[in-house]
């Protein structure tokens, strides 16, 4: 790499980190809008059941633990990446994927159960907002899982380049961000729904 290329690369990394942080802020506001709508509409059950009747707290607790674990092992992957331990990184990332996917599977099964019982998103404004808010988070998780696959493949193929390290860092930012959003969902949707 020439000197110009090296200087440009370092600057690019800082720039991309800033850009990604700002993107996460916009994602925050996207979620905030849907949260606000949920809070306004959560009492509008149109004669049907509300959160208290529908939410299965132990189930949700398991989901939460799965996602938190996924975040934790993602952090371990980052630490291993700092130490350039390729095998460990890939291992922890696969673990991240497994826990994240398990979270998503459980969430989908909750959705399917609700729909099967006639509490689908068409039934009321409350249910529309519930499925949309939780579903939006789930969609982000799905995108994250896909991103994770691409990153694992890139690290396997290319090792630790400036590009792959940067993308791994950005992914972990994204993953932890989704964790924070889930905490908000857990509190505002589930906890406040059953209390």
């Amino acid at each position, binding site marked *: 790499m020439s000197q110009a290329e090296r200087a440009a690369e370092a600057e690019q990394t800082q720039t991309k980190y*800033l850009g990604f942080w*700002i993107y996460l802020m916009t994602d925050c506001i*996207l979620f905030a809008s849907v949260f606000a*709508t949920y809070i306004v509409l959560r009492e509008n059950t149109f004669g049907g059941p509300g959160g208290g009747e529908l939410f299965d707290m132990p189930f949700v607790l398991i989901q939460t633990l799965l996602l938190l674990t996924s975040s934790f092992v993602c952090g371990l992957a980052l630490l291993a990446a700092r130490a350039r331990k390729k095998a460990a990184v890939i291992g922890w990332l696969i673990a991240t994927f497994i826990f994240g996917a398990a979270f998503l599977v459980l969430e989908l099964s909750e959705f399917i159960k609700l729909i099967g019982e006639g509490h689908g998103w068409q039934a009321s404004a409350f249910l*529309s907002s519930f499925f949309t808010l939780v579903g939006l988070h789930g969609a982000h998780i799905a995108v994250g899982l896909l991103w994770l696959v691409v990153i694992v493949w890139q690290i396997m193929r290319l090792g630790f380049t400036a590009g792959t390290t940067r993308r791994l860092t950005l992914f972990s930012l994204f993953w932890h961000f989704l964790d924070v959003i889930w905490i908000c969902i857990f509190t505002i949707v589930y906890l406040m729904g059953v209390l």
Partner: protein
Amino acid sequence: MNLDWALGRLTLDALPQELVTQGGAVLMILSGLAVVAALFYFKRWRWLWRWLTSLDAKKIGVMYVVVAVIMMLRGLADALMIRAQQALAAGDSTGLFSSDTVQQVFSAHGTIMIFFVAMGLMFGLINLVLPLMLGARDVAFPFVNSVSFWLFAVGMVLANVSLVLGGFSPGGWLGYPPLTEMAYNPGPGVDYWIWALQIAGVGSLLSGINFLVTILKKRAPGMTLMKMPLFAWSILVTTLLIIFAFPILTATLGMLSLDRLMDMHFFTSDGGGNPMMYINLIWAWGHPEVYILVLPAFGIFSEVVATFSRKKLFGYGTMVWALFGITFLSFIVWLHHFFTMGAGANVNAFFGITTMIIAIPTGVKIFNWIFTMYRGRVRFSVPMLWFMAFVITFTIGGVSGVLMSVPAIDFQVHNSLFLVAHFHNVIIGGVIFGFFAGLNYWFPKVFGFTLHEGLGKLSVYAWIVGFMVAFLPLYALGLMGVTRRLDHYTDPGGWQVLFIVAGVGVLIIALGAGLQILQLIVSIWQRKKRRDTTGDPWDGRTLEWSVPSPAPFYNFAITPKVTERDAFWEQKEAIKRHEKQEKPKYQSIMLPKNSSIGLIVGGFAFCIGFGLIWHMWWLVALGLVGVIVCVIVRCSNDTVEYELSATELEKFDKQYRRQHA
């Protein structure tokens, strides 16, 4: 084999049924074919491809402006139709067009003017000017810049395809439910509106992030934030507005589309839906949006007034504070768009007061500009005339805004033609005149020759007179009790006369637009005579004038070092003081390679939008997969730049500088 699923709900019925829409569709298709034919005839496909796949902000900027100008002609045509209808449809007359057509026309008019003309001109000018002004080579993320443009273009295409297939939304430019829900508008029109805005909106959000990071990270060494030109400050606050506001639009349109596509109940009349929530959300985006449009225009005026008064801008620090004041306040005023929805006296009073407070920093800016002229040497070239037109016109709009900020007054004029006059007043007087000033001002830097002054001046006068004749009657009509969006009316006295006067006004505005087109054509015809040989046709103050015209593809051969505000003026003063100039030391630089992925992502985005509108689910899936694949391909490619060696750079630099005396 039954292929009905492939076409979703698209049938031959989607083709236009009325003469006027058929005419419009045919005109549009013929124009498109004419362009294609010209490309074949002049053998310019390769040239076009280089443009479309360019990641150079200057080329992307030109493309934005081209799209915006074409859309302005469409929007003006819509305006002429509305005025014609309202001038004729008094008493028993039903005018020229059916009610449904008129409602589609004014919805398209508003949507196109805000999203594709105003936003397009804005992003275009920012792309053309901001990197140069900051002493940078390009924006922070050139590839994302290209994607943003293509998403914008696809939104525009979707809005226009509706003219040929299916018709547009009749629900107004903001599409209030429950009118825009399936119960009242099950057809594709509202969906066209939703997805055109949704896709273009993503592009806008990405641009907001891009320009903010550009300002924060790509300024030339020595250019602290307080040494930036004021235009750059205006863009900085605008990007903050975009970043905070556009996600709200995405969420809201998303939820409306879920209501329509998946039978949800966010904003429906039944099922527990709450249309008032939509109105709150859409205006929580909508109000910052209008400041997103006007603040860059204010930034342009700051540059234009200082340059053409040959004087420092008055009160730089205050101007920055005023920008931040307006930005912050613009987030806490949104309820003034629906004082009559019944939020109650205290809530109304709060939002009314925050709204009128915005008048203070705005007024301060106007005084600062006027006092920049004080003890200056003012040259009334076309950009400066647009500034004069702005003060004359925008002030009236500001006053009508302050009047309506008083809730009890708004109770009488809300949604009347008084309101329509107000927002056209501030948007035309502020946003459009500002962008016209910018286009005339920076045209030589982009294309290398100046625009014809005489025709430019005539166009300013036509726009001022046209605006007054078209919109002052609307203030009167509003006070006479005429609500907006009527396609016919029983005239209790005086309405039709005023509508006819307003119609004449729009014709004068159209004349102004025609003069601008003529100005462009004549200038191109005379381009050799009008060549900008110095790169500094206006005796400018900021860095973009320090490079040759047109600006080289790498912007600056050597990144400038900045010590003062008005960096280029300072450079010129230093030369006048016979200060020792450093000998240029060329270094190799990295520039982005062209990429077709932006264009391809746009194509897949079109598939997603079109598929969702017509329920062609396979097309949606194809589009989604396509976008994902494009992103993965791009992110797997680590050789997206090329190096321009120091020797090549020196060669280009000397060549450009030699071409100019």
